[in-house]
């Protein structure tokens, strides 16, 4: 199956006047296929967000290449964004629009066929249970409601690729579980999903393959079962420490779940 996302030797270097050259991402390679959730697991500052920002064309890579649905992130950024839905804690909603207006705006501006927008908005309002507050301004909504509107706006143009950058940060347990369920549903619909998190249980529950990233490099990338097999650890937390801090790693206990 053709990969929806490919990243090859992706690199991002920032020039910081205080710290000098900072390699936030240093040669990242991976692929994500339709119907797959690919997890980027790393601590804060590991390079997850920078990688995802490059894939979503918010940032340009210093070196390396990446494609989304065959479109190059440097030379075809608009086409990349058209095929992509990007969700993160830092992509807030427009507070002065209503929930319905928000979904409609994102569908329209991201190139969803104009004659099908009304039906698409209606379907998303129905799917995410937004109907009761569809006409309310976003700034009047609770954080749980905002989260639903935010997911709806991410998929408003029905993109085949979705990027979720730490989507459960700041959410309570119930809302975090709802989020995980929605992401799993998108996988079932055949979307290729890149999902970054530093919460091990989320990665364990959701991801088909997991890349452990640290210092801008991918240290390991495989299915959870294969990672268990390779490290001899059962829990993802131990597997993570095994790669990131080998000196602190627990003795292997046999990786079979």
């Amino acid at each position, binding site marked *: 199956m053709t990969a929806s996302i490919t990243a090859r030797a992706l690199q991002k270097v920032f020039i910081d006047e*205080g710290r000098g050259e900072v390699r936030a991402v240093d040669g990242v390679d991976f692929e994500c296929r339709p119907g797959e959730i690919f997890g980027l697991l790393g601590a804060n500052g590991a390079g997850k967000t920078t990688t995802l920002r490059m894939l979503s064309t918010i940032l340009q890579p210093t070196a390396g290449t990446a494609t989304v649905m065959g479109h190059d992130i440097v030379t075809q950024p608009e086409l990349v964004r058209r095929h992509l839905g990007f969700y993160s804690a830092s992509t807030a*909603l427009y507070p002065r629009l209503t929930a319905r207006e928000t979904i409609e705006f994102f569908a329209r501006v991201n190139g969803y066929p104009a004659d099908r927008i009304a039906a698409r908005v209606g379907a998303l309002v129905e799917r995410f249970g937004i109907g009761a507050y569809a006409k309310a301004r976003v700034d009047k909504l609770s954080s749980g409601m905002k989260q639903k509107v935010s997911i709806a706006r991410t998929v408003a143009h029905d993109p085949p690729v979705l990027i979720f950058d730490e989507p459960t940060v700041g959410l309570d347990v119930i809302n975090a579980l709802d989020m995980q369920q929605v992401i799993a549903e998108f996988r079932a619909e055949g979307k290729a999903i890149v999902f970054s998190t530093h919460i091990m249980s989320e990665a364990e529950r959701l991801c088909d393959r997991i890349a452990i990233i640290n210092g801008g490099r991918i240290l390991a990338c495989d299915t959870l079962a294969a990672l268990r097999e390779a490290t001899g650890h059962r829990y993802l937390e131990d597997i993570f420490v095994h790669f990131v801090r080998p000196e602190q790693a627990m003795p292997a206990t046999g990786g079979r779940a």
Partner: protein
Amino acid sequence: MRDILTLYRHELRMAFRERSIVVGSILMPLVLYPTILWLTFTGITFVQGQTEGQVARIVVHNAAAVHPALSNALRVSDKFQVVTEPDARRAADLVRAGAADLFILFAPAAGTASALPGNFTATLTFDASKERSAAARDRVAAAIDKFREDWLEREARARGVPTAGWNAFTLADRDVSTGRQVGARILSLMLPLFFVIMVAIGCFYPAIDTTAGERERGTWETMLTLSVPRTRVVLAKYLSVATLGCLAGLINLAAMLVTIRPILAPLAARAGETLEFVVSPWSVPVVLVGAVLLAGFAAAGMMIFAVFARTFKEGQAMITPFYMLLFIPVFFMQDPEVTLTTKRALLPVMNVALMIREAIVGRLPWLQIALTVLSSVALIALCIRAAAFILRFEDVIIGSYSGSFGQFVSRRILGRTPKRGAAEGA
């Protein structure tokens, strides 16, 4: 008391570590406002000097009726230029047409006033709707007053009597302007000033809201994920700011036109004048074009500064100097005699304000208007190009650049190295 002092120090320390407070409360009052004030007064003084330096063109009839000393004073003074027109009606027409500034008709005093030897009356025909004519009237009246004072004092001293009660050298004013002309003059003085202020205010908050406001609300990154080219996103933002500025200026203009009559007419009636506030139909398209040009420039300029701001507060601090600068050219226009010349058509903001003023009084100097439009469009294009250049820098577009416009120019364009410890966004 100690608690208050501790808290007071804490508040001050926090305030002095906030750049926008330091800029707004310390640096701007210290440097910017005095500079603006100095520039304004320099400009006003310059304009006044030009007006005072103007030669008043006067038509004098029956000069033989007055004291030779006064007649000579008017003739030989370099402040007056005597225009010859023997016919009184035509002389008044010259004043109406602006070919002469003042028509003075001297006549020997009649009745009891003639008891005073050499006494005369002077009828001053002028056009109150023209600053130059009104200034000529004031200048001649002042010259006659001075002559009267000296003469009376001399005569009274010679006769050993007080000057009180002497009805000498009376002046009569004859204003040839119509209420409509005076109304147009008042409008031309007030409307362009308020227009520029309102367009600037109309652009100010939207320019901050669409840049720094978006960053503060966290929607800037959302906007960056839209599948349209970033240049279009920025252009749409610019057009929305310019539209709001344009709208603010036009709404204010309309409101002023509607309300100025009920406000000023009673005052004018008390002064014995009937004012009409009617603008030429030709002024409507000119004002519309002016609104578009002015808002286009103000929006572009403000957005260049605002794009560096990460919070609303920073945005206000960064735009305010530019916002204040917009008003400087308008202060120079307090003299109604400042008209739209070819040179002034190249001065930003002032050219548009003058173009609107000319249209309000019914003058349409097409060459200067064309120059105003061309130079304004060129300036707007330059600003947009500058904004496009700035937004090519990734850290500026994503909002991680922590410097100001000045720091950006210094470091990224002029290549100066920042002082140690001065951070700039990665």
